[in-house]
Structures are given as C-alpha cells and as structure tokens.
C-alpha cells in the first residue's frame, strides 16, 4: 500500500510537470496545428526570467511570485515575435514550420549561452518552499505541491478563458472553422496572434516553476519538448481535457513502470506504449464529436 501511495504521488508530481510544459503547446500545436519546436526555448526563457528577476530583487520568495507574470509576458512577447516574423507565413505548412522553428530554437539556445554562459545558473528555492510534507504516507517536497498548484491555476484559467470569454469563443471558432469565423466577422489573424501569445506565455510560466525541480541551462527546454508533444498527441488534438488526462496518465505510467525498472527503460517503454496506443486510436483520447463536418 505504501509503495502504491508513494508511486501515486510521484506519478501526479511527474504529471503536473508534464502538463505544465504541454499546456501552452496544446494551444499552439493542438489547436492551431503549428509545430513549434522553439516552444522548449520559450520554457527556457521563462526559467532565465526567474533567474534575472531573482538577481534584481534578491529575495527568492518574492522573486518567484514576481517572475511568474513576468515570464508569461516574456514568453508571450517571444511568441508574438515568432508568429509575426515566421509562423504566420507558414500556416498549413507543418513541415516548414517544424524546420524553421527548430532553427529558431538553436538560435535561442546560443543566445542564452552568449548572455548567461554555458553552465547552468543557480536559481534559489524560496525558504517557504523548502522542506517536505507527508501525503498518503509519502514524503513530498513543497516545491512539487507548488507546481501542482500552478498547474491547477494555469489549466483552470485557460479553461475559463476558452469557455466563458469572448476571446475564448473566438479562439475556439477559429480552430473549428477558419473561413466561417472570418466570414462571421472575426479577424482570424488577430485571433491567431493572441492564441500564440497565450500559448507561449504559458511556456514562460512553465519555465519559472521548472527552476524549482532542475537546473537552469540553455538546453533546459530540449528535455521537455518531446514529452510535451507526446502529451498533446496522446490527449487528442485541440483537447485541453485530453492533455490533462494524458499528462497525469503518462506521469502515473512512468512512476509505476519505474518501480520494476530504471527511469531510462521506463521512458522507452512509455514511448512504445504511446506509439501502440496511437496505432489503435490515432486521434488520441478525445475527438471532436458532431453531426456536421464543421
């Protein structure tokens, strides 16, 4: 029972990190169909934002809270720039987008090396997040619970935005039927830009909290980008709830598979399981269900 409890907690913890790195991508890739390989570098930019804010403010506790909205703005600004300069010319050309944004990701990594140096920088954990708490008989670091909290706020906020606001309606409409949206009076260009900004901003937020669980270096995002795509694809294209289920499902799977093997083998097995799952259900966990085509 103890083992199951501890793996359950570990799985939720892994799942929350996965969800946080994937949630922005589920907007830009899942909903807009743009394969943005630089999404990982937006996460990295968020992490460095946390570092810079901490250097300026000094206090680790305050700087973490300040860094969250600042990183959203930094990620969003980078996203806006990428969308305006590159991606908007490549909508509906996924392979071109993939290659071009891969190039951008390399440029951003080098930029980070030039500015901050190749070695990882030190982002201190605030005192109020140090230590552990016991959950289901398992010792859990406060940082992991904080990440779970940020995930709940980010995903909840995004879900609220999409379902209750005018902007959310516009985003969903453009995703469902671009031409019909345009002829209904919606500027699809402006909506695309905003969607990209929000998705990239969420990547920035993910970067800030990742400083709590790992080192902050120029290749921080590379380690997460494949997992993030895995979550979005397994969850079903354009489905936030699919991303939530897939992230926690994969997190739990990894935690329990790790019980009887190593982390590397577990990762490999998960990839095999997801590929096998997509053979049976290529559309992912959830699909759009309607009587009409649109």
């Amino acid at each position: 029972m103890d083992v199951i409890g501890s793996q359950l907690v570990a799985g939720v913890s892994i799942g929350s990190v996965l969800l946080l790195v994937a949630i922005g991508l589920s907007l830009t890739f899942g909903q807009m169909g743009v394969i943005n390989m630089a999404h990982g570098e937006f996460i990295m930019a968020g992490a460095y934002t946390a570092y810079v804010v901490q250097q300026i403010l000094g206090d680790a506790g305050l700087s973490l809270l300040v860094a969250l909205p600042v990183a959203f703005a930094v990620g969003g600004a980078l996203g806006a720039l990428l969308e305006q300069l590159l991606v908007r010319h490549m909508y509906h050309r996924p392979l071109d987008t993939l290659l071009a944004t891969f190039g951008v990701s390399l440029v951003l990594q080098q930029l980070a090396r030039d500015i901050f140096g190749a070695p990882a920088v030190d982002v201190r954990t605030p005192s109020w997040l140090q230590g552990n708490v016991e959950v289901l008989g398992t010792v859990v670091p406060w940082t992991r619970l904080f990440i779970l909290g940020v995930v709940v706020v980010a995903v909840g906020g995004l879900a609220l935005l999409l379902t209750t606001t005018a902007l959310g309606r516009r985003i969903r409409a453009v995703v469902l039927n671009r031409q019909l949206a345009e002829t209904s009076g919606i500027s699809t260009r402006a909506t695309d830009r905003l969607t990209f900004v929000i998705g990239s901003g969420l990547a920035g937020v993910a970067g800030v909290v990742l400083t709590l669980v790992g080192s902050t270096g120029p290749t921080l995002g590379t380690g997460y980008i494949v997992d993030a795509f895995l979550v979005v694809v397994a969850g079903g294209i354009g489905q936030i709830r699919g991303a939530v289920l897939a992230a926690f499902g994969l997190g739990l799977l990894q935690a329990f598979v790790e019980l009887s093997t190593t982390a590397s083998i577990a990762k490999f097995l998960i990839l095999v399981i997801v590929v096998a799952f997509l053979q049976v259900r290529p559309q992912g966990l959830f699909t759009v269900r309607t009587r009409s085509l649109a």
Partner: protein
Amino acid sequence: MTLELVGVDAGYGRTQVLRDVNLASEPEGVVAVLGHNGAGKTTLVRTAVGLLRPTRGQVLWDGEDITSLAPHKRVARGLAYVPQGQQSFGQLTTTENLQLVADRARPRARRAALVDAAMERFPALTAVATRKAGLLSGGQRQQLAIARALITEPKLLVLDEPTEGIQPSVVAEIEAAVTDLASSGTAVLLVEQHVGFALAAAARYAVLASGRVVSTGAGGREAHAGVREALTI
C-alpha cells in the same frame, strides 16, 4: 448599399470558373442567382464575400473597391454571408454561436439583446440553446447559420443555397424568413437551385452557366419561362 462584381474572373489554381461576370445587388430586395450544379454560383459568392480573390475585375461596395478587403472587414461594412451546407461551429453551443458574432457589437449592452432577437426570429433555436451546434438537425443548423448572419445587422445578406438538403417543413420557415427580411429593407443576394422560391422572392435574377452570366431579368413568377429556357441552354 450595393455590392457589385465588375468583369470578374475567378477560379481555383489554374482552373478558371468565373468569366467576365458582371452582377450587382439591389439596395433593397432580393437578387437571385440561378444555375445548375457546377455553374459557378458558389465561386461567385465566395468571390463576393472575399474568400476568393478574383484574378481579374473588381468587387465594389457602394462604389468603393473592396477587392482586396479581408472577409471580416466586409462583415463590419454590412456584408453578411450564409455559406452552403448549414455550416456552424459544431463544438460551440447554439447560444455561443450567436454570442460569438454579437461579441463584436458596440456598445456592450446591446449584445444580449441581439442574441435574444435572433432566438425570437427562429424560435426552434430556443429549445436547443445549450446544445452543441454539431448535434443539431440540418434545419436547425441552417436557421442558426442565418440567425448568426443577421446578428451582424447586415445591409446585404448573401445566402448560398439556404434550402438545400433541408426537410420541407423547415424550408417553408427559411423561405418565410428570407421574404420577411427582404420586405423589411435588407438586401439579399440569393443563390438557389429551387427556382420557384427564388423567382417568387426576387426583384431581379441572373442565370449563371459555365461561369458566365447568360441571362438576366426582372423576378416574379412570370419570369419562370425565360429562366427555364436559360437553364436548359
């Protein structure tokens, strides 16, 4: 306000569909565009609303050249469009489909009233207000599509085959709504295969064949013979 196509050629890639089309809407009332399948009717309306850029010629809105104006900006000028095939945003509810368009209205206080008025015009939508549009019947979806277009308070409504594939009882409601709209001062450009309804409602008609306007004339039931002859050719 009138929409005018002047010497328009349009098509898809190398395939030219429209050839030197000249057509204008009336400031009020219905102009019907008739023609067989493949005559170029849908290409004509897609060019008119801005989804397709003509390869030659101009699209004018009250004399102003709007050939390169984005579709959503044409909507803001008063040009609304109901495409073929009962298209709606399937994952959005009926109410959300209407709110989506009402969201653009100013001042903000008018938005709820616009949605309510649309529901009143098509009472069948009230019963399915919270249902996703993709789960509605074809007739309900078409009513929703027309209601969504009307929320923009158009000066000209472009309707592409509004009664196609709809059950007869709902067809009558849609025809009544179009007639009612035209008599209340909104101009309508109606693309229809259902000649009887189109001519009864229309002040003027144009027959399209192989991408060309081959016949025009005044509407009314007495125009039947001339139209039938043009369609046979």
